[in-house]
């Protein structure tokens, strides 16, 4: 992966296909959910290969459950490896999450207890994944409504430890940082300063909604069904200001699709946030008399 400029792309969703093809000049790359194609038909996989031959494609996994004390399932790794070989994406990514344990499928990304044992388990799983797929994944921080019990490490320290132990780079999801900061009471900007910014290669931006708990308190749900909120664009500017390397930003939208111009406007706004951050990064420090 030798990227020389910032780029902004969009998550590939079948419902958006026609609109995406109509506006490819505004979209630098497409992120495809790998798991959707693991058991895809020959035609579907051929279509994906055709897509990747025309547009920059990256693969995003959601079901490996790599951040776990349990070993990652070999069959799933093999499916990812096979798809990677077929599609030859620019890179692939997965989540710092567990999705199953003790034979129970959670059905979504769950935050494991953030401990040194979990760091070891994640590093072992990543070692196997890298060996099978033949390429290092970018690892994404997740949003969680429940602060995982039994944690001995703060989230930034845990994320940093796994990246360090596996020598993997980061897919930094800024809405997840924003949501966790709101839900668990910390400062999102400080979070960004506590992770190794030099390892951030790609960024997710998305939106969510406030949900109300039984006790009347509210939390932010990362549902990917709403527009990207202002604080996420502000965090994007921050990370662009502190990371010298080129960044690949991907807008995620999983439903309640607005008209395409509304999505393109968010892509454009992401470009502006990157530019503002870059300007800060290169601007000489002002002397205060």
């Amino acid at each position, binding site marked *: 992966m030798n990227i020389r400029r910032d780029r902004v792309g969009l998550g590939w969703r079948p419902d958006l*296909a026609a609109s995406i093809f109509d506006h490819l000049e505004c979209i630098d790359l497409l992120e495809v959910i790998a798991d959707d194609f693991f058991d895809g038909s020959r035609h579907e996989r051929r*279509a994906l290969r055709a*897509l990747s031959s025309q547009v920059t494609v990256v693969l995003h996994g959601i079901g490996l459950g790599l951040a776990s004390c349990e070993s990652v399932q070999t069959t799933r790794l093999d499916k990812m490896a096979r798809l990677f070989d077929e599609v030859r994406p620019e890179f692939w990514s997965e989540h710092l999450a567990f999705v199953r344990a003790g034979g129970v499928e959670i*059905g979504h990304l769950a935050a494991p207890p953030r401990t040194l044992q*979990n760091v070891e388990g994640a590093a072992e799983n990543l070692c196997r994944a890298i060996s099978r797929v033949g390429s290092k994944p970018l690892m994404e921080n997740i949003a*969680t409504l*429940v602060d995982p*019990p*039994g944690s001995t490490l703060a989230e930034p320290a845990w994320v940093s430890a796994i990246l360090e132990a596996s020598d993997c780079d980061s897919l930094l999801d800024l809405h997840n940082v924003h949501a966790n900061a709101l839900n668990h009471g910390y400062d999102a900007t400080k979070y960004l300063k506590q992770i190794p910014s030099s390892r951030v290669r790609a960024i997710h931006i998305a939106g969510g909604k406030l949900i109300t708990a039984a006790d009347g308190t509210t*939390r932010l749900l990362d549902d990917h069904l709403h527009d990207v909120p202002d604080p996420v664009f502000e965090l994007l500017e921050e990370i662009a200001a502190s990371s010298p390397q080129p960044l690949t930003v991907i807008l995620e939208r999983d439903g309640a699709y607005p008209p395409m111009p509304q999505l393109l406007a968010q892509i454009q706004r992401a470009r502006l946030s990157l530019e503002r951050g870059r300007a800060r990064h290169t601007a000489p420090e002002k002397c205060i008399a």
Partner: protein
Amino acid sequence: MTTSAFEAFLAKIYVDPNARARFKVDPFGEASHAGLSPDECVAVMKIDWVGLDLAARSFAKKRHTKTLSNRRSLRTRAQGFLSSLLGFFR
């Protein structure tokens, strides 16, 4: 601390409403019964209860959506994808 058993216990109370209800009534007993060490039992008793309910609700919704999505005709999705692709390369 935190073993496979700990993660398995969390997965169970995230997914199974009956297990979650039993855990709320007797947190230490339920965790101990699941094979967690005394330290792990104490740790899991400190869970964010409000977050647990919200997370469980969110996971259940995701599983439901996934089931519905799997029931959707894959053929329809593939046809939409292929026709869009054909339109693009024309």
